[in-house]
């Protein structure tokens, strides 16, 4: 081809085009390897993660999961002043204690005055109509001696009043 031919520069364009194509191809290949399968399924994130989040195991089972094995405590509790307090609040999540409706580990014991005062210590920030005491004063008034077990001399935590 003569250098003054109108198509003399065409081959540069073809080479550039080929390079561009190569670049695009490489990008597509690399991208298909790096981008997760479910990316963009629902939006700009990995769609499979939604299902992964949902599969997370439950720890708290609610009072119903306790009543099956502990009907007596459940009955006492339901009739007492702590009926609105869930079992797992004072005890621990049922998943630490039973699996597939069968016992596998003891519940941690937190039967101390510290647990009681976490709700009933008189605090300025607490709603005024919530039952509160100054524990040392209250126990002294009742003629007791304040200690970790003091509350349980008079109160059954399942039905305190």
């Amino acid at each position, binding site marked *: 081809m003569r250098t003054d031919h109108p198509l003399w520069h*065409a081959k540069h364009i073809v080479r550039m085009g*080929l390079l561009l194509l190569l670049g695009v191809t490489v990008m597509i290949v690399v991208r298909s390897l790096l981008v997760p399968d479910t990316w*963009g399924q629902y939006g700009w*994130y990995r769609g499979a993660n939604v299902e992964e989040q949902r599969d997370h195991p439950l720890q*708290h089972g609610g009072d119903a999961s306790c009543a099956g094995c502990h009907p007596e405590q459940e009955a006492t509790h339901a009739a007492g002043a702590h009926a609105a307090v869930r079992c*797992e609040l004072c005890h621990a*999540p049922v998943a630490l204690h039973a699996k597939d409706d069968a016992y596998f580990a003891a519940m941690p014991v937190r039967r101390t005055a510290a647990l009681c005062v976490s709700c009933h*210590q008189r605090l300025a920030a*607490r709603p005024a109509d919530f039952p509160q005491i100054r524990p040392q004063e209250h126990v002294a008034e009742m003629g007791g001696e304040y200690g970790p077990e003091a509350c349980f001399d008079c109160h059954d935590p399942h039905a305190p009043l």
Partner: protein
Amino acid sequence: MNDATGTRDGLDDATRREFLKRLAVAGAAASFGAIGLILPESAGALATSDYDWTRHRWVYLIDTRKCIGCGACVRACRVENDVPDGMYRTWVERYHIPAGGEAAVDSPDGGAGGFLPVAGAAEPGKAFFVPKICNHCEQTPCTQVCPVGASYSTRDGVVLVDAERCIGCGYCVQACPYGSRYLDPRTHTAEKCTWCYHRLVKGRSTACVGICPTAARMIGDRENPDDPINEILATQRILVLQPELLTKPQCFYLGLDMEVR
């Protein structure tokens, strides 16, 4: 191509032209393919369970006047979601505001162990507890800054983090104006409240709402007209934290004081 010799390398003009044409078509197809890969597919409901996320819209409600600051929610969340010590997906703050004075705020261990009386403190003009949690904003500053698409909002209004994608840059932790996110020291990825998404989709309440002894916390479904939360949101005076930021929090408050940020 118009060379006197006709062919240089064994290809005649027709074949060459044909080859280039095919190459162009293939290139165009590949480009369109790439666009197809980049654009999200049109979305539908998740098919894997009977929970249809297009039929739910979760909102949260906190009545600060009911909170007794026992910390049961913080403890429940910690176990339910395996939250490491020193990190909080929900926490309880105590405000002491003397008449005409400056607010004092404390939250020892996020309130997990409850609160003790403030030693030597004068009787405050007002004092109250404020439970805090991720607001699951509709306009999320946190997901917007994520450089790898690890954080996102679900169709039913929950802001989540994909730990597999997260690179732990901490940008979202800084972007959240409510301090709701943390970097998990074990995985070095961002973590946050999920509104116990694993419980919601199974028809359960969140761990914090379920454990609260005074019903200071509520979670509800805006798409369910029978949900009691809708009655409250429609008839009570509600507030959100830092409304001036226009993040549209989906966690609403009753009895909030203007000192609370």
